[in-house]
C-alpha cells in the first residue's frame, strides 16, 4: 500500500504541507475547469460569462504556478500528483486486467 510522504527531507513538514495544499488546490481548479467547459459546451453560459470564468480560472492557475515557483515546491507537487496518479492507475490497471481476462 502506498502512502504519501510529507517530509521526505527531514524537518521539512511545513513545505510538505504547503505542497499538499497546493496539490489539492490544483486538483480543485482542474475540476472547476472541467465543469466550466462542460457548461460552455452545453450552451448554458453566455459569451460574457465564458470569458469571465475563463479569465478567473486562468488567474487562479497562474497564482498557483507562482506560489509553486516562489516556494520551490514544483517538484514536490509533481511528486504528490504522481503518487495520486499511480494509486489511481493501479486501480484502473487492475480493473482492466480483470476485464481482459473475462
Amino acid at each position: 500500500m502506498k502512502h504519501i510522504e510529507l517530509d521526505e527531507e527531514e524537518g521539512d513538514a511545513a513545505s510538505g504541507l504547503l505542497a499538499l495544499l497546493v496539490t489539492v488546490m490544483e486538483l480543485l481548479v482542474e475540476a472547476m475547469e472541467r465543469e466550466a467547459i462542460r457548461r460552455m459546451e452545453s450552451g448554458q453560459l453566455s459569451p460574457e460569462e465564458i470569458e469571465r470564468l475563463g479569465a478567473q480560472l486562468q488567474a487562479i492557475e497562474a497564482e498557483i504556478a507562482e506560489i509553486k515557483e516562489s516556494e520551490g515546491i514544483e517538484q514536490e507537487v509533481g511528486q504528490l500528483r504522481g503518487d495520486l496518479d499511480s494509486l489511481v492507475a493501479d486501480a484502473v490497471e487492475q480493473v482492466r486486467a480483470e476485464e481482459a481476462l473475462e
Partner: protein
Amino acid sequence: MTDTDQISDADADLDIEEGRYLYCAVYADDDAGLDAEGLDGEAVSVVVRDGIGVVVQPVDSVFDSENLTEVRQWLLTHQGVVDEAGAAFGTPLPFRFDTILRGDDATVVDWLAENRGELDDALSWLAGRWEYRVEVRWDETAVEESVGEDEDLRELAARVEDASEGTGFLLESQYETRLAERVEARRSEVEADLVERLDSHAVELQHAGDGAGVFSGSGGDDDLQRVTRLSLLADREAEGAIGEELEPFAEEPHQEVRYTGPWPPYSFAPEIGGGE
C-alpha cells in the same frame, strides 16, 4: 504460504537455526545436481523425491534489507539460479523470492511428499511452456500530432486562436482534454488489437503491471511512453509465431515493440502449499 514450516517475508524473526532457501521445483532424477552460484555466493543443490526436485541452498536467516541495491542483487541471483535450473531441467516452477523452509534437506523431502500432487500438476502444466513479455511503446508527442489532425480537433484549435483571453483559456483546456482522450482511445485500440492477435498463440495472457523492470531490461532510456505491457505463457514452439504477430506493431511509425523471453514462468506459477 500457509504451510506451517514455511517462512514468509513478513516473518519478524530473521534468524533461523537451520533452513533451506527454495528457488524452484523441476522434474529431476535422483542424482541430479546443479552447478550454479546461489545467494551470498553459496552453492545450490537439488533435493529430489520421486522424480520431482527442488533447487535449494542452506540458509540461517531470511534475506531482508533496506538497501535496494542489495535486494536487487539478490533478486538477480535468485533469477540466475532459476534460469540455470530451467536450462538444465526444462521449465522450472519458480518460487517467490525469499521462500524459506525451516529445517534441513529431510524437511524438504517431506515437503515434496506433502505437496506432490500440486507440484506435479503445476510442473506438467508448465512443461515446455515459458513466459514471454511484450511491451509496446510509442512517441506520444508524435501520436498527439497525428491524432490532432482530426477535423474536430483542428476546428477547436482554430477557435482557440480566434478567442479572447479567458475564453481561449477554457477552449485550450478543452482541446487538451479531448486530445488526451483521443490518445487514450488509440492506446486502448492498440492494446486490444495486440491482445486479440496474441491470444491464440498463448496458453495464458496477462496484463503486466508497472513492476520494476528486472525482466524487461532498462526502460526509460529514451523518450518513448508505454502503450501496454503483456505477459504470455506460451509453448516454446509459439515463439516465432508471436514474433510474426508483433511485426505490424513494430512497423507502425513512432512505435516500438520489445519482445523478451523465454523467461521462467514467474507470472504464471501457482503457489504451492497454499491450499492447506
